[in-house]
């Protein structure tokens, strides 16, 4: 199809053909990880800035490796808090960085809409590494890559996403992306953690774990944050993990070839029992490996497309 975008802000903006392009390119990128010399000169001389307002070693490292394997110069900018906290507004920080002529800025921020704001104001490409509860497109892309790798195709599969959908950008990006690729999505969780009118996103909604995972080809577990208990969304972590956590026993009635996925980091004993996390059903480590490949593909596609 050909990638013509300056930025990658969300799965909602992409067409199915563009998603396929990224996944196909990522396969070629994955081969580089198997080499002894993990480097290609493709982005030599390009500068990638990681602007991370939320601390995240994993995603940031993944982007860093991706950039470096493509021979780009990767700079890490850890800004903490928001405009209000540190005095310098988001736009001012971005303008300052732009004055140093980066080719791509990868941004993670707790405010939904922040990458879109930057993309409007910056000449260089912007990659959304997670904005509030809105989108985390590279996560959804690596999830789709993993599923396609294991199942051979995407269309017609049943995926169940379990957990705190309301506060999850991983859930939203996956819902948007999966639907475009012809996947049937079910979300499952206590009503307090499923957002209003969720079914209008084109998903089935379930409040019973057993029924939601019975026919799933893929079960994606979302991370539960401890703040949810304080916010009155769930009474206790203990009860949540008993009712909504996955154990080998709960997996017994499921398809024998079911995949268990998790965006990480896993709260062992909460979302997944340790046995499930370490079982052959789990493809969590494949997700991580594919993360680097997908991010290489995204940087390759964006760094090349000129808006000038």
């Amino acid at each position, binding site marked *: 199809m050909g990638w013509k975008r300056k930025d990658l802000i969300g799965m909602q903006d992409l067409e199915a053909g563009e998603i396929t*392009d990224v996944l196909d390119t990522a396969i*070629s990128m994955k081969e580089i990880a198997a080499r002894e010399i993990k480097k290609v000169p493709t982005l030599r001389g390009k500068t990638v800035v990681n602007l991370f307002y939320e601390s995240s070693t994993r995603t940031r490292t993944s982007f860093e490796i991706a950039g470096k394997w493509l021979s780009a110069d990767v700079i890490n900018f850890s800004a903490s808090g928001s405009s209000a906290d540190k005095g310098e507004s988001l736009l001012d920080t971005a303008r300052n960085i732009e004055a140093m002529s980066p080719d791509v800025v990868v941004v993670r921020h707790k405010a939904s809409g922040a990458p879109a704001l930057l993309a409007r104001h910056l000449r260089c490409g912007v990659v959304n590494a997670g904005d509030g509860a809105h989108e985390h497109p590279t996560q959804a892309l690596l999830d789709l890559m993993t599923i396609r790798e294991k199942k051979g195709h995407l269309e017609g599969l049943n995926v169940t996403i379990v957990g705190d959908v309301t506060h999850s950008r991983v859930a939203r990006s996956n819902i948007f992306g999966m639907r475009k690729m012809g996947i049937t999505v079910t979300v499952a969780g206590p009503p307090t953690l499923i957002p209003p009118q969720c079914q209008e996103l084109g998903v089935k909604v379930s409040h019973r774990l057993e029924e939601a995972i019975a026919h799933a080809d893929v079960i994606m577990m979302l991370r539960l944050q401890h703040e949810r208990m304080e916010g009155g969304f769930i009474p206790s972590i203990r009860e949540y993990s008993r009712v909504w956590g996955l154990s080998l026993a709960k997996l017994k009635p499921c398809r024998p070839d079911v995949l268990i996925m998790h965006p990480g980091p896993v709260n062992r004993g909460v979302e997944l029992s340790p046995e499930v996390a370490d079982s052959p059903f789990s493809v969590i480590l494949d997700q991580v490996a594919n993360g680097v490949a997908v991010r290489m593909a995204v940087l390759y596609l964006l760094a090349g497309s000129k808006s000038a």
Partner: protein
Amino acid sequence: MSTREKAQVLDETGLDRALTRIAHEIVEQAGGGEDVALVGIKTRGVTLAERIAAKIAAIEGTKPSVGALDITLYRDDLGLKAEQPIVRTTEIGFPIKGRTVVLVDDVLFTGRTIRAAMDALMDLGRPRIIRLAVLVDRGHRELPIRPDYIGKNLPTSRRETVAVLLREHDGVDRVVIQEE
């Protein structure tokens, strides 16, 4: 932009003879002692490499290793095009170090593809020698690159294109000159 065929420079028989001759030349230069591997440059270079390898097998009794090289990530014109070219996968299932590698491509033109291929190959290991086999050399070099085995020398003008059609991809075996 429509192209029209101007002339056929190789028919099926001519193409086959050229590949046979290249195979003999490779075997002769190797002298029986060298461990030659063929690496085709995607996409049609790979097909030609497979054919040459089959011919060498018929001559020597053993088939040399064949690999496929995608040079997209090593191109020197990325970022100058409107969109990024599609990346395909490199598949070289044998060690490069210390080997004699013969790069195989269909048409040699400016030489930039071969430059990229050499860089890609070096990132995978250190070959002892790299040689180059091309089906057609159409001139207009922009870099100091010269082929070791040539199927046919074909002087062309810049306006022309040389198309190599192969049974496995296009249903026929022929080489034609086209003009816009």
